[in-house]
């Protein structure tokens, strides 16, 4: 899903790196020797100095009140936001009504036919089956609502993304200006910026669509730019020599050449938008996400799963179909497409004439009961009293006392300037002085906003979760890279974990680990694991076969090959896995506010629930800052270099 797919060039000499690293450390130490005594003299004490905080709660509350009081009368809302909101409502409604008019048979047939033209018979059957399962689970109407929302959100994301991507792909200056913007948009945990969108647009579909666009547009923009810049120069030269104008070059050569990247961008955008569909249910998006969220209110994991499965199926189908389109296996002629379209319409009409547009209520299957019984059994037997091992509750307790508590207390005990120094050193060692500066400023911003302590609390949870994720993820990734059979067996499991809405497993983790920070960490690990496993496995498999071959011919054992050849050569992929793991973990640790994770996540939930802009926005901003810190600290320089290249 949220994997970054830019391939990185190789070839940094380790010796040079070591020298550079040493130089950087020396410089940081010198800077610290000068700055720390100054800081300590002025603002003594461990925690962030009160003199350096800015209280923004009053002005923020004022902004909130102003928006609510002027929403019905101010021109900004009447002539701008109001129109956007109406346009979103109208378009979603139009798609929704079309889907309903198609009926279940028509939508299923059309979906299958499109999949057939794009990706072949197997995926067509899979698509049809997926739609039918949505109906059987009694989720037809919510599925159509989600689909309508997705269509509009994805279209809007693609338009925004392509425009931004064109700008960045054609102009170096705009590219430099846009890069930090896109970076930030991608690092933002979606949960953090729901509140301002809600404040302006109110609860409901427009807010949900706009929040989704913010989240889903960056990959499209990034890959569009990448595709435009990566176009084969020889082809471009040939086109130019034929005397094509700039516009013709763009339309006839550069965009067609970037087709692969564009379709990959579409694929990523769809995946991001789907994962947002559930989070947006917190602000009243309706559809499947809302069903998941409502099922949680009555602590009904089975019902939540019944609404979560259609999301997983939609994600898998859309992922495979758009991926196949990107690979360009089948190029259907216009005539065949017309046949397929006509066949879809015919099925829809036939179903309509037979009087069966809605999914028949008697064709549904109730899976909530069995699932709930399974979850009950699991939690009843694992929660406590497992012989020798203790129960999951005991593990969670120990994890909290032995890992989370020391980590949090340690971070909060550290003098504030030392935290900044650590961040600076790490970010600089792995990146450039620019990334280091961003990281330090972002870290300092959490202090300035007055949420230093809760930020470090959240940070401690993220660090613990990342550590667990990396241990498990690297192990599984190595195994998947070495055994094809294991990789095949793992793939559907990863698909499910990656696309299953996080809300579905929040209740089981509480049932297993109790209320607190431990279940938040557990949920984060489950969510971030697939990306880490995938990137690790892919990186290891891409290691130059010649290098492996020569190692083998020198008589290296399997273990030696892994440690001395594969892992060092896949270093960049591993770093990317760390980076993605960190960003994904942060997103879920925040949602952990819903299960007792506390800290910034709780503040965001509180702000959303109480409409308290001051608390919610400050916490949201702090999360964004933490995201930037974590991203920059784990971001290899090489990745930055390739982004626009």
């Amino acid at each position, binding site marked *: 899903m949220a994997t970054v797919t830019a391939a990185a060039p190789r070839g940094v000499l380790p010796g040079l790196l070591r020298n550079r690293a040493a130089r950087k450390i020396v410089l940081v130490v010198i800077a610290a020797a000068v700055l720390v005594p100054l800081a300590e003299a002025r603002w003594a004490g461990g925690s962030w100095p009160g003199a350096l905080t800015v209280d923004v709660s009053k002005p923020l509350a004022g902004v909130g009140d102003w928006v*609510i009081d002027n*929403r*019905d009368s101010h021109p900004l809302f*009447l*002539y701008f936001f*109001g*129109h956007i909101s*109406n*346009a*979103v*409502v109208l*378009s*979603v*409604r139009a798609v*929704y*009504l079309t889907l309903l008019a198609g009926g279940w048979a028509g939508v299923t047939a059309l979906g299958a036919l499109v999949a057939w033209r794009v990706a072949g018979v197997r995926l067509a059957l899979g698509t049809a089956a997926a739609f039918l399962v949505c109906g059987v689970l009694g989720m037809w109407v919510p599925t159509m609502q989600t689909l309508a929302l997705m269509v509009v959100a994805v279209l809007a994301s693609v338009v925004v993304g392509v*425009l931004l991507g064109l*700008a960045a792909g*054609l*102009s170096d200056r705009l590219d430099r200006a846009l890069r930090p913007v896109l970076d930030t948009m991608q690092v933002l945990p979606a949960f953090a910026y729901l509140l301002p969108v809600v404040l302006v647009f*109110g*609860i*409901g*579909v427009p807010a949900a669509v706009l929040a989704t666009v913010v989240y889903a547009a960056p990959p499209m923009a990034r890959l569009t730019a990448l595709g435009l810049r990566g176009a084969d120069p020889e082809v471009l030269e040939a086109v130019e020599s034929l005397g094509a104008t*700039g516009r013709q070059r763009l339309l006839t050569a550069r965009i067609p050449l970037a087709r692969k990247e564009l379709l990959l961008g579409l694929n990523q955008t769809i995946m991001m938008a789907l994962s947002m569909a559930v989070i947006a*249910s917190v602000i*009243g998006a*309706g559809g499947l996400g809302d069903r998941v*969220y*409502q099922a949680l*209110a*009555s*602590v009904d994991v089975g019902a939540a799963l019944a609404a979560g499965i259609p999301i997983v199926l939609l994600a898998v189908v859309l992922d495979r179909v758009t991926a196949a389109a990107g690979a360009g296996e089948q190029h259907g002629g216009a005539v065949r497409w017309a046949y397929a379209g006509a066949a879809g319409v015919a099925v829809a009409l036939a179903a309509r004439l037979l009087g069966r547009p809605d999914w028949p209520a008697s064709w549904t299957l109730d899976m909530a*009961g069995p699932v*709930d019984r399974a979850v009950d059994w699991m939690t009843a037997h694992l*929660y*406590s009293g497992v012989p020798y091992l203790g129960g999951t*509750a005991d593990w969670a*307790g120990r994890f*909290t*006392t032995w890992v989370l*508590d020391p980590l949090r207390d340690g971070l909060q005990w550290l003098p504030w300037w030392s935290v900044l120094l650590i961040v600076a050193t790490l970010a600089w060692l792995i990146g450039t002085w620019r990334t280091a500066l961003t990281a330090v400023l972002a870290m300092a911003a959490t202090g300035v906003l007055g949420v230093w302590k809760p930020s470090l609390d959240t940070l401690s949870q993220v660090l613990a979760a990342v550590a667990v994720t990396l241990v498990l993820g690297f192990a599984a990734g190595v195994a998947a890279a070495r055994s094809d059979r294991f990789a095949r067996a793992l793939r559907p499991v990863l698909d499910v974990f990656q696309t299953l809405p996080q809300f579905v497993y*929040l209740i089981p983790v*509480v049932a297993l680990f*109790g*209320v*607190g*920070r431990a279940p938040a960490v557990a949920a984060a690990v489950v969510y971030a694991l697939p990306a880490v496993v995938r990137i690790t496995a892919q990186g290891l498999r891409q290691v130059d076969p010649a290098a492996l071959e020569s190692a083998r011919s020198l008589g290296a054992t399997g273990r030696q090959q892994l440690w001395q050849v594969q892992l060092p050569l896949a270093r960049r992929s591993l770093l990317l896995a760390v980076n993605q793991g960190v960003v994904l973990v942060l997103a879920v640790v925040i949602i*952990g506010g*819903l299960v*007792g994770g*506390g800290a910034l*996540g*709780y503040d965001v*939930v*509180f702000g*959303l*629930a*109480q*409409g308290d802009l001051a608390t919610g926005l400050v916490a949201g901003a702090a999360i964004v800052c933490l995201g930037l810190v974590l991203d920059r600290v784990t971001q290899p320089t090489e990745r930055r270099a390739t982004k626009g290249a």
Partner: protein
Amino acid sequence: MRTPNLGRRTALTVSWAAALSLLTGCGAADMTRQASPFANARGTRTVTLSVQSWVGAQSNVAVARYLLEHRLGYRVDTVQVDEVPAWDALSQGRVDAILEDWGHPDQEKRYVDDKRTIVRGGGLGVTGHIGWYVPAYLAEQHPDITDWRNLDRYASLFRTPESGGKGQLMDGSPSYVTNDKALVANLKLNYQVVFAGSEAAQITQMKQFAKERKPFLTYWYTPQWLSGEVPMTEVKLPPYREGCDADAAKVACAYPHTPLQKYLNAGFAENGGEAAAFLKRFRWTTEDQNEVSLMIADQKLTPAEAAEKWVAGHESTWKAWLS
């Protein structure tokens, strides 16, 4: 190679804006009327109800929905929203009614008295009460635990990894009305408020504790279906007097008993026809609500099935709402 083409992008922006206004009709857009795109599909009459996260609120909506759909021929959409945002949504017309409000004086003043976008819909007939509760099995073992003055002696019983050496007082969703932090501070109790973050998490934890008959102290409220499954005893706090909770930071008294209220969107109340009239008359008892809630949350019936069952057995109650 560089083609900034600013002109074209401006043109794009302009045409985009033009398309927007074409789509939506020129002139001002009314942010106070923003129906859901899923409402009134295919010409059916639709009512949109807001559901809050606790099951009692689901029961109200389930029964209202069942009667609206099967007796009055409406299609009912539901939106799950937290309490305060629900007021905002109600004011904008995204939802038509809130059936169970636990008292939000600020919101009432803003929307009902000043802006007049929301009107009162009368009482629900159910009285709500918030308090601190311990499970009944614990109250039997230690009868004196049900007085706040004795709580400190039992603090060690309630310790958890999250409570930092103190006793744990578990609070639920951040959207609920709570003075617990102030209460713990002002009553000088050796307790730490731990927020479960959602009612779902809180209930799951309480069930796990109850299964093992472990002691716990929690923020809880009645009417609540879980009380049928895990019997609980309220801990006495200093008695409630009118106005003793006026200053949120200085609260040192129990929570009041609140007759729960309904609120309707002003436009819907006026033009909502049968549906609005029905929702205004909707009024039942705590026992009725608990009956439905238990069916939903404990027997795992879907809200629709639970409502159907209740409606079958209480004709005299709901007949009065329809006439």
